[in-house]
């Protein structure tokens, strides 16, 4: 049965528990994908979140959990899952680092310079977004989709069914707000 499609529909109808189930379902899947990507990614270690969301989408469609025409709804929703995955993993790493002697040695001694990732930055954005979501939910969602989901402005406009120019304006505004007011 098209599980995700059904859940998306129930979310649209305003059912709260449906959103939780949907989140859980997509969370594990996206987390698994993200982990395997980061593991397999070797030196790059740059998580291509858009690719990940696309891949998750394809997997769900292929497994029959999601109807292909729910693409838009899925994408709008997937970036919030992606955000959780990323924030959780940043928190884990922070805990690990604080936990002490985790040492990473890189393959090539020539690139042995090793600096912790900018996990703090990620967590700051995450917390600032919580505040922004209260004041300006749409701008917060645009940031979530662009920063955590890695979508382009066009993709965001499509998923949220708003004008690209509106997305661009929300984006510009949100950055200013986050930078100045939320510090």
């Amino acid at each position: 049965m098209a599980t995700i499609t059904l859940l998306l529909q129930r979310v649209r109808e305003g059912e709260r528990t449906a959103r939780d189930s949907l989140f859980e379902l997509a969370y594990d899947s996206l987390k698994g994908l993200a982990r395997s990507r980061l593991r397999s990614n070797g030196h790059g270690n740059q998580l291509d979140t858009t690719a990940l969301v696309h891949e998750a989408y394809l997997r769900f469609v292929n497994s029959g959990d999601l109807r292909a025409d729910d693409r838009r709804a899925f994408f709008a929703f997937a970036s919030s899952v992606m955000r959780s995955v990323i924030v959780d993993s940043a928190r884990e790493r922070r805990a690990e680092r604080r936990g002490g002697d985790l040492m990473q040695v890189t393959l090539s001694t020539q690139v042995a310079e090793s600096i912790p990732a900018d996990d703090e930055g990620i967590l700051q954005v995450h917390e600032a977004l919580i505040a922004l979501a209260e004041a300006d939910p749409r701008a917060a969602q645009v940031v979530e989709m662009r920063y955590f989901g890695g979508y382009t402005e066009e993709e965001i406009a499509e998923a949220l069914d708003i004008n690209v120019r509106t997305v661009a304006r929300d984006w510009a505004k949100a950055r200013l707000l986050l930078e100045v007011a939320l510090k």
Partner: protein
Amino acid sequence: MAYSASELTVISRLLDEALCIDAEARQAWLDALPCEHAALLPALRQMLDRAKTSSTLLLDRLPRLNENARHDRGTRTLKVGDRVGPYELVRELGSGGMAEVWLARRADGAYKREVALKLPKLTRQRRSLERHYERERDILASLEHPNIARFYDAGLAPDGLPYLALEYVQGQPLTAWCDAHRVGLRDRLMLLLQVTEAVQFAHERQVIHRDLKPSNVFVSASGQVRLLDFGVAKLLGDEETDGSPLHLYTRALTPDYASPELLRGETVDLRADVYSLGALLYEMLSGDRPYRLSFVGPPAQLAAAIDQIWIVRPSEAVVPGAGPARATTDDRLMGRLRGELDAITLKALALTTAERYASVAAMAEDVQRYLKGERVLAVPERIKTEELVAQLSRNPNVRVRRRAPVYPTTREVRTPVTTVAGSGRRVIVSAELVGSAAEAIVWSRTYEVKLRDGFNFEDEVATTILEAVRAALDTGAPLAAWRLKVEIAGND
């Protein structure tokens, strides 16, 4: 300064208003704000200042997510609208280990064409980067082929950074394209042949790509393959000099598609690309990579990991849902991969170059044979008992008489191996050639066979033994009668 949610709501609304009016008029607008907003004025002023210079880099990109990631000190940050030489950046297309690629157009209007502009990320090793880009330019200039992204232009931006202008390929990475379009097996193989053609073309010009992977093989909307990124390519026989940024290569490399010899840092030849094509084919067929290597760990650990690479046949690695993405079912897909396609893929993925296809052409020919329904060379010929006897009897020291149509009589030769014992990765095979009179051992040999070659295990052992026996007989040892004994033992 933290603001309450209600204050933020107001700021957000006011910003909407302010951003809509011209930058010059904003001061007047600020001055005209009712005094109830006085507390918000400093923040608003600061934001509008920043909006004017658009200097904010905040949220520009998600930071690297791995604790092993490194910051590129001295990274220059490019943004939409920036000029690089004669080009203007339109949007970022992607970013790899050492370069970022932007969609760009000529700012001077010389021509309309959009290009993919490749720019280095690091400014630290400017000199070596320049040399590196010159090299890539020279390589690209020699590679004009319909399946290779075209090279247009190269130069130095006024700030001294090198750039390369390449054909902008609108499309998707090979594997993603195949899945999105639910491309069936045969068509996937046809696409692979387009890739092999491009690689072969490069090989004929002595260029080894060294980084073939799905994200470097794009398929355009019309289904045409374009090979991208010769950034770590090298010329055959061209030894890396100390000045070349090999450490950048290793960083950019995706280990899962790279051949073991490349990962070990040995000198590679064209067969390194054969291996990567094997990995690519593996993923196109099964939906998964042959394996996933992690680069975190001391070099010795990596070397150990490479030695332990264990590749299961593609037919056994089919990921759930891969069938439907290939216009079939998972079960049928497994069935179709079993045998010939397994053999082709694993031959390309042989861990030693000697066992691999000798060239990309040889691999492509085998794929073509499969498509035409001809015998695939990767599947070893089964050595039948009678063939063994026939071959042996060409040796003047051996006489073979036949009684029944099939079995020889005076000399009992049996196909050496029946089943494989044990579930371990290796098996021990011991074979003896015994002279009959005194049970004297004329020849004996014990060797290990790696089970990853399990599918043609028997034939391989047979061939090896046959050759050894032949060599033994060539020494001219007189044999009245002899017997071949083979034992197999599993060994974990």
